[in-house]
């Protein structure tokens, strides 16, 4: 029993490494395809908006990036929890692999939000609950990455990072529901589980296709980063040596 468990633990990153390597090109390809389709729908097929005219087209970047920024954090926290509970190295590596992409997409949502807010609201930035909580999310990602890189021992770095990931996850529902719980300048959700989307369908389709592109890209980027982390951490393992010798 113990032997099998150890073997599983030992083999897991190796299996993952090869499996991910085969999947990555497909996810990048799907991301490119969805991105081209989404941009075509969003920029050419979708009509102008009745109140914001062409400025609303920022939505095709802003909303997918904002969705992913929250979703990636939740997934990261899940991996961190799994890692803490079962002490699996792969879970911690997945959490670390997701963070930079999550931080990048959080920045994209803040940046596009500022560029959208200026012409429509009249301000680049306001300290309302939605914008503030999204900014906190950005700092949580940065904190996670900074802490991990500050601690030399990977095991302790994993644990410390996992703690930030788990504590910070309470911020995600706050971001999501902020527009309902408080008076905010940010408008409410156009797409939610509780009501029909308040968007013309072609606009909605463009946004959802762009969201799919963001999904595919995130998976591809996280998988390739996870492979790098595996190589770094498992460089002493036999399978790495065998693989590199086979390649050479």
């Amino acid at each position: 029993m113990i032997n099998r468990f150890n073997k599983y633990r030992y083999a897991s990153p190796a299996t993952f490494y090869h499996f991910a390597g085969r999947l990555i090109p497909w996810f990048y390809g799907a991301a490119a395809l969805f991105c081209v389709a989404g941009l075509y729908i969003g920029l050419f097929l979708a009509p102008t908006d009745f109140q914001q005219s062409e400025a609303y087209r920022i939505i095709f970047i802003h909303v997918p990036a904002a969705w992913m920024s929250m979703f990636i954090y939740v997934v990261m926290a899940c991996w961190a929890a799994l890692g803490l509970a079962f002490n699996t190295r792969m879970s911690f590596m997945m959490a670390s692999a997701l963070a930079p992409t999550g931080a990048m997409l959080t920045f994209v949502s803040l940046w596009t939000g500022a560029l959208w807010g200026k012409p429509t609201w009249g301000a680049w930035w306001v300290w309302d609950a939605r914008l503030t909580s999204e900014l906190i999310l950005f700092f949580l990602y940065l904190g996670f990455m900074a802490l991990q890189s500050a601690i030399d021992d990977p095991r302790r770095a994993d644990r410390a990072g996992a703690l930030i990931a788990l504590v910070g996850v309470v911020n995600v529902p706050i971001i999501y529901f902020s527009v309902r719980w408080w008076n905010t300048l940010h408008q409410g959700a156009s797409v939610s589980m509780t009501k029909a989307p308040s968007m013309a369908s072609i606009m909605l389709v463009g946004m959802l296709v762009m969201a799919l592109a963001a999904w595919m890209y995130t998976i591809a980027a996280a998988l390739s980063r996870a492979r790098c982390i595996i190589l770094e951490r498992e460089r002493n393992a036999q399978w790495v040596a065998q693989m590199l010798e086979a390649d050479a």
Partner: protein
Amino acid sequence: MKTRHKKLILIGVAVIGLGVVATLVLNAFRSNLVFFFTPTQVVKGEAPLDRAFRVGGLVENGSLRREPDGVTAHFRITDTAQTIPVTYKGLLPDLFKEGKGVVAQGRLNNSEFVADQVLAKHDENYMPPEAASALEKAQKTQKTLVLPQEGK
């Protein structure tokens, strides 16, 4: 196996505990997270009178009046129950329109709100202009006025 399950439960409890603490803290600071007050809240005296705050609602139809100097504007913010008259000197945002959402920042001077910043608050509806005008026609016949977003 057992210790691992214990750990999982412990982590679960910790996350739930943190969630509860965060909710409580947020509830306590709720008033500070309010981005704007509605005219009803202002009339009820819930808004701070000694410092600047924000009023949000709809620009009342037919209330916008511009002074000949070209920069001063007067309008009223309404939440359909109460209205607050506003004076503002400066450029109004593109989406500022009668009947649309607005958030003004400033101070209450007697019963008039003197704003130093006016932001447009748009709703979450996106549609082509033709669809919007068709919808408007339909709504006018129904004679209903709906706030785009009410807090809480």
